């Protein structure tokens, strides 16, 4: 090789190496937020969530639904129902919008673009839960028909599981549909809804006809998504879930002036748990208690969705990556062989030809490796991190004089973990008492994997009113006031 050619070759190699680094799509990056706009936006937000809302601004449209959902839930838990309603309405607007001929959706299908560049809509279990919380907010306002519509809309999101037995089996939704139908005074509709609930959850017990308060208890923390490449039943799966918390149960107690009525409707063959509950409900001491029933295992819902249609595209990307990588390896071997021929040969012509071959094969290897490295076959692992692991429920018949219930969280072995007093919020015919075992305020201002790795750990500095003031002129530097 001549000296000039060598330099060009080295420069090309250096350039390509530089190009392989930092291939983070601009869309993943957090945007710089205008301080004035941020201050105005954060003014009415809960202090505990200001860092989170600031990051939501910086992350923009790509993570809008994700941030709306986690902040909506946190606002709901803080009692900021107005804000929670706005956030969930916005999230559901994003979920319900049909992405057809959408540029970002098109881009996310491309070979060299990560799935996580798409606008987040969540996996079906996350979408269902957004409808669930919006429905609870409607129930809080006494708008039971709209609450029912929300639960029904949520159930529809669960219709796309790979295996038939896992489709539309999100039992929490029809249970709450039935409850909302009862509360709106429509028993025939309630019957249909509870029939749907039984289709999803066997013969689990139903609320009694006189029950007027529903206690909902959420335990544990959100299912965790992780990317993997495995074939289950011949179909590729690139997104998997793991449970993040241990089993917890809930014991609910309350003080009532008169014993509550046992449920009027129950399953045909009551098991021991139901008998215990009925006995507990009928204790004449004025202090009553019962175990809450597991209505939904969120992790189970997340984990039984099966493969996604999009996994087939990721599989195509992964195969392309594998083939390109193999081509790169073969070219490297070829380059080494050609290089050794060039080194050993005494014939100048052979040396020249071998050197050309070495260079060409090295470039092919480099190009193949760069290409293989750039193929983005990983699944999007952003997830709603302040969801619960399980949802328990207990319908009760309580007079208006009962304003709260006590919820004792227990470990799987029955050890008491913590106790919370929960206020019953009554609206119209019914009341709702909702409580969580763990905080709903996300620990990190950023949702998992919602930003590039280097940004995920960056501290969040909220703007202050000082940052808006123009710099004071410094007389020492010769600045003068006009």
């Amino acid at each position: 090789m001549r000296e000039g050619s060598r330099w060009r070759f080295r420069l090309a190699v250096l350039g390509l190496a530089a190009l392989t680094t930092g291939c983070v799509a601009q869309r993943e990056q957090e945007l710089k937020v205008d301080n004035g706009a941020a201050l105005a936006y954060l003014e009415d937000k809960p202090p505990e969530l200001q860092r989170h809302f600031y990051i939501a601004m910086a992350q923009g449209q790509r993570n809008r639904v994700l941030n709306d959902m986690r902040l909506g839930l946190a606002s709901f838990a803080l009692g900021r129902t107005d804000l929670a309603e706005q956030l969930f309405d916005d999230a559901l607007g994003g979920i319900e919008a049909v992405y057809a001929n959408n540029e970002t959706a098109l881009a996310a299908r491309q070979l060299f673009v990560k799935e996580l560049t798409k606008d987040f809509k969540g996996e079906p279990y996350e979408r269902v839960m957004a409808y669930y919380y919006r429905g609870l907010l409607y129930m809080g306002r006494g708008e039971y028909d709209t609450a029912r519509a929300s639960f029904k809309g949520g159930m529809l999101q669960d219709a796309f599981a790979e295996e038939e037995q896992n489709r539309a089996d999100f039992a929490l939704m029809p249970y709450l549909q039935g409850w909302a139908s009862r509360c709106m005074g429509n028993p025939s509709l309630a019957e249909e809804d509870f029939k749907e609930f039984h289709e999803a959850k066997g013969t689990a017990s139903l609320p009694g006809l006189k029950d007027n308060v529903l206690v909902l208890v959420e335990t544990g923390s959100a299912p965790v998504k992780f990317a993997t490449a495995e074939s289950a039943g011949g179909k590729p799966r690139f997104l998997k879930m793991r449970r993040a918390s241990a089993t917890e149960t809930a014991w609910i107690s309350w003080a009532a002036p008169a014993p509550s009525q046992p449920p009027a409707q129950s399953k045909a063959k009551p098991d021991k748990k139901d008998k215990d509950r009925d006995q507990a409900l009928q204790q004449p001491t004025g202090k009553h208690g019962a175990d809450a029933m597991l209505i939904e295992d969120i992790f189970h819902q997340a984990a039984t969705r099966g493969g996604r249609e999009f996994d087939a595209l990721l599989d195509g990307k992964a195969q392309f990556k594998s083939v390109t990588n193999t081509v790169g390896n073969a070219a490297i071997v070829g380059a080494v062989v050609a290089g050794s021929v060039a080194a050993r040969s005494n014939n100048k012509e052979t040396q020249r030809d071998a050197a050309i071959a070495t260079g060409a094969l090295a470039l092919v290897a480099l190009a193949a490796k760069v290409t293989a490295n750039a193929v983005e076959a990983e699944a999007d692992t952003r997830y709603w991190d302040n969801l619960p692991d399980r949802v328990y429920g207990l319908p009760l018949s309580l007079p208006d004089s009962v304003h709260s219930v006590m919820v004792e969280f227990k470990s799987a072995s029955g050890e008491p973990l913590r106790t919370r007093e929960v206020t019953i919020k009554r609206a119209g015919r019914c009341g709702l008492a909702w409580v969580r075992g763990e905080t709903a305020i996300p620990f990190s201002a950023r949702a998992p994997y919602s930003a590039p790795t280097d940004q995920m750990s960056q501290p969040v500095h909220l703007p202050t009113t000082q940052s808006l003031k123009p710099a004071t002129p410094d007389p020492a530097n010769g600045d003068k006031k006009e």
Partner: protein
Amino acid sequence: MRRPTAALCILASGLALAACSRVDNSAGTPTTYVDPSSAGPVRGVGIESQDIISMTDQMMRDMLTEPRLANAATPPHVIVDSEYFQNESSSRLNKNSITDRLRVSLNRASQGRMTFVGRNYADMVAKERDLKRQGIVDKATLPGARAQKGGDYRLGGRITSLDSRDPRTGTMQRYNQIIFEMVDLETAEIIWSGIYEFAKSAQDDIIYR
């Protein structure tokens, strides 16, 4: 040497640049007015603004052809609100957006052939009447009434939907049915009925399936 090396460099650079393909992070779209009677840029399978406008216009026209409502010797007192308008569908919506538009349209189009009673304002009216009768405020200019107006007819109705999903293709379809009924508040006779129905289907992008 020069040509193949240069060609390979260009090829490799192209591939590497393609690897860094960036999704446009556009600054956004300025606010634009959208005709509410036509489908906007964001669409779903639920009830949308164009559906509400279309259905209320149709119901209004139909109601005005009912002689007991629009050609009675004495204009009937009608109550059009969402109190008895039930949503049993899977679409989350504010029912007032339907009944309010229907009432306003009817009120304007009927030109006095119907009298509209604002039952949702009953509390507001009762408070003012109390203040007047207690002498806290004066009697204003209108003659006093013995009581607030009662209703001859009241709107009832129901929104229902039938949803279907195809798990193989990710296609979703929703049939929406909205019925409107005007009920005689003495006899419970339904003196007028109207129905509006439509179905929508859509398929989300594969990246969401």
